[in-house]
């Protein structure tokens, strides 16, 4: 037992009130524990007590004061029993938190500089925001690549965050298409109304799952061949069975709604337009695995999706669909929403756990795996929202009917995020096995100058393919065999006028910025890789020695990094070099 040493700085009344409110919403009293009872649960003690409220508390401080002040940190440290040095270490991990006083008292306008926005001219957007007196912060993909260039406004002085484009009318490119499965309610059911969701078949799957029982649901999910849509394509049935087999400890279901892979926006649209489906599917996951605690970890730049999900949870709880004996299934299950704060790495499942627990979002070494040692060290099933959505159909129509779509080894349909130089950018759903060329046609063909130069598959962590890949069937097995990936469903097209050197250099910069910094291969490797490419861009050529060096750096990042960020940090760069996308002349 240790006491916490606090410096002299004190929070303002407004800061303290903002923190108190954030904690109250999460059922934690903002009281200072008597010194004799105060237990510093830092270091490796991870438990569902107080520290997991650190992220919400820091959000409250940032929103109230426009930064996280020393007095604010001290207040949070005191009421959550977190040493101030650790709270500071957490605050400085995230892009949306500032630990220096702001030089302006307005909101912060985050403008995306990643590939889709790069080729859509983010600099013009930034200039117009500046001209209007807005404070611009250039940063990574905001998950709005279909409407590039993208903007997210972070509120200060208690003003809420917002995305200006959310005010515009929304229509799915495939609206009205009878073959849609995962997207069939979007634009049809009212996302703010439980009644509307129910009128369109909502909560039928949970009712059915309750009748089937956990064992039969696990059986159906395994038989469906469903695999994870968050990027790693792990079989969902195997994961759920492993969690179901754990006993004697609390268990968790986590929806990984961090969606920060550049080029990815599918989860955002699903959460905004069909939020009840996400929480219904989580309830089924809870029932099947025996987990009672549901968590949604959503990236901080998604205010509309956050509000819609929270609204859906509140409505479902009021209707008895969450909470004790949820929906009459005999199983207790509830869901809490936690917001991230600007860190791509927090989408990695173990980094997500650390972040939610109030620690720095640094990935853990695996094994042990989340199914036995996940959130709070307890058995956890973590899934992408798209993965979860599939479960609704699997339960309702059964695995055999589900498998009629897609291919033998990639059953079902896939959500794909089309952006860049396509006629109608947006979210699409097609059966696995559709060719890349057909998909691009569906999205209105190649826009810009009409001549396809390359497609980025799977996002920054994925790889480029050339126009000769239009015949590639989009399945897990075919993309793997072709040395590329579907990853999180990114399909970003570039025409022959796009400066691919600039795009590749930015991808390398993305990894440099987003590395958590924990392990040497990635912390230093991502920097050296970016520096080597900047050199190349300035010189207009890459010497054979430098080209070999890029390969040597890639090898250690793939072989010795802790997590998938390091493992994939060289992937797009290498594919661009192999395809000859990099111009051997100085960039203008």
């Amino acid at each position, binding site marked *: 037992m*240790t006491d*916490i*040493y606090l*410096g002299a700085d004190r929070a303002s009344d407004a800061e303290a009130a903002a923190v108190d409110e954030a904690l109250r919403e999460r059922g934690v009293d903002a009281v200072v524990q008597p010194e004799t009872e105060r237990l*510093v649960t*830092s*270091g*490796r*003690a991870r438990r569902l007590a107080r520290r997991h409220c650190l992220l919400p508390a820091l959000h409250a401080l940032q929103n109230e004061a426009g930064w996280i002040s*020393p007095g604010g*940190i001290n207040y949070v440290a005191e009421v959550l029993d977190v*040493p*101030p*040095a*650790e*709270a*500071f*270490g957490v605050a*400085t*991990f995230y892009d949306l938190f500032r*630990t220096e006083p702001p030089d302006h008292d307005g909101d912060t306008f985050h403008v995306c500089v990643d590939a889709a926005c790069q080729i859509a001219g983010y600099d013009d957007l930034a200039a117009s925001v500046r001209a209007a007196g807005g404070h611009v912060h250039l940063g990574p993909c905001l998950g709005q690549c279909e409407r590039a260039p993208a903007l997210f406004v972070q509120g200060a002085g208690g003003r809420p965050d917002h995305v200006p484009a959310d005010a515009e009318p929304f229509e799915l490119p495939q609206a009205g298409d009878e073959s849609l499965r995962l997207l069939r309610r979007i634009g049809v059911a009212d996302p703010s109304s439980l009644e509307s969701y129910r009128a369109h078949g909502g909560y039928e799957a949970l009712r059915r799952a309750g009748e089937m029982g956990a064992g039969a649901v696990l059986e159906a999910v395994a038989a469906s061949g469903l695999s994870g849509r968050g990027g790693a394509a792990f079989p969902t049935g195997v994961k759920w069975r492993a969690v179901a087999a754990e006993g004697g400890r609390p268990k968790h279901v986590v929806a990984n709604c961090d969606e920060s892979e550049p080029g990815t926006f599918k989860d955002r649209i699903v959460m905004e337009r069909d939020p009840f489906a996400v929480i219904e599917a989580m309830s089924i996951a809870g029932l099947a695995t025996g987990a009672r605690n549901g968590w949604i970890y959503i990236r901080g730049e998604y205010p509309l999706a956050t509000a819609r999900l929270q609204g859906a949870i509140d409505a479902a709880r009021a209707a008895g669909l969450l909470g004790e004996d949820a929906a009459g299934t005999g199983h207790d299950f509830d869901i809490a929403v936690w917001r991230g704060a600007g*860190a791509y790495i927090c989408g990695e499942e173990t980094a997500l756990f650390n972040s939610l627990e109030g620690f*720095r979002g640094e990935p853990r*070494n695996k094994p042990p795996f989340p199914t036995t040692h996940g959130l709070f060290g307890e058995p956890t099933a973590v899934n992408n929202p798209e993965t979860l959505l599939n479960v609704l159909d699997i339960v309702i129509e059964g695995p055999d009917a589900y498998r009629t779509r897609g291919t033998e080894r990639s059953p079902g349909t896939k959500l794909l995020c089309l952006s860049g130089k396509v006629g109608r950018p947006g979210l699409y759903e097609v059966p696995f096995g559709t060719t890349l060329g057909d998909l691009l046609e569906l999205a209105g063909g190649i826009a810009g100058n009409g001549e396809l130069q390359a497609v980025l598959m799977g996002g920054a962590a994925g790889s480029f393919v050339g126009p000769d890949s239009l015949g590639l069937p989009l399945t897990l097995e075919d993309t793997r065999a072709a040395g590329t990936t579907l990853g999180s469903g990114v399909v970003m097209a570039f025409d022959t006028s796009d400066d691919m050197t600039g795009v590749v250099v930015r991808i390398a910069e993305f990894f*440099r*910025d*987003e*590395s*958590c*910094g*924990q*392990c*040497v*291969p990635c*912390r*230093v*490797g*991502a*920097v*050296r890789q970016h*520096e*080597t490419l*900047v*050199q190349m861009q*300035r010189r207009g050529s890459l010497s054979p020695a430098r080209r070999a*060096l890029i390969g*040597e*750096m890639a*090898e*250690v990042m*793939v*072989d*010795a*990094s*802790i997590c998938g960020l390091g*493992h994939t940090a060289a992937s797009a760069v290498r594919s661009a070099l192999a395809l000859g996308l990099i111009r051997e002349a100085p960039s203008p």
Partner: protein
Amino acid sequence: MTETTITETAVTLTIDGRPVEVAEGSTIHAACVEAGIETPTLCWAENLTPVNVCRVCVVELEGSRALVPSCSRPATEGMVVQTDTPRVRHSRRMVLEFLGSGVDLSQADDLQRWMKAYGADPDRYGDEDHPVERVEEPVKVQDELYIRDYSKCVLCYKCVEACGDDAQHTFAIAVAGRGFDARISTEFDVALPDSACVYCGNCVGVCPTGALQFKTEYDLREVGEWRPEDQTVTRTVCSYCGVGCNLDLHVQDERIVKVTSPSDHSVTSGHLCIKGRFGWQYVHGE
């Protein structure tokens, strides 16, 4: 009284083609030590919980796509491990090279030795026109007990662990920032005397690079008078209280220049308090 003997279950694994038997729960690294195979480590220490972040100890494990950190991966029955393949040598060399390219390793003797052994060339990145980014921080001299020179820091997390729940439970320092900008820091980088630090010096005791250094050593190095080869080490028991901590007094020119404790000592595990660590001036009548 009856004697109980605890029988440990043993596991047998194969390292570089040879069978090695270790107690269940031992790491691959411990098995390598058992087999007499020298393995570089940086963030591992026998008195700290493994954080497996530096990746210099990686080995090839049959059935695993990536290399695995030997310092934290438990050895299990039937494992087949290779410690000297081209892949392993490449990763170790690159990790050492990356470190050398970004921080000042001039006082990290072990790392220097390993860099030579693995042929690491940290100067091959960048050139005159394109200097590489390095960790550049002014030396923090904030008191008379120890200094912090983070341009020598390899972010091994050892000091954070020693200050945290592996020893001191003070939590005065943590990692702040992200990526290459990550630094060991107090809250808002306040000076140590204004932080929770109680000056146990345990962080200094575990630092492998000289980033944390006793002021006595720092001052002598500044004037070129630090001569480890001329130092004697005398083991004694701390006289301040009844706990019985072993002290190693490092003496140069008949003056104590630093105090450490053996990391395998049953009482201290290498860790001390401010009195044993820094309260020796009276020996010199000061």
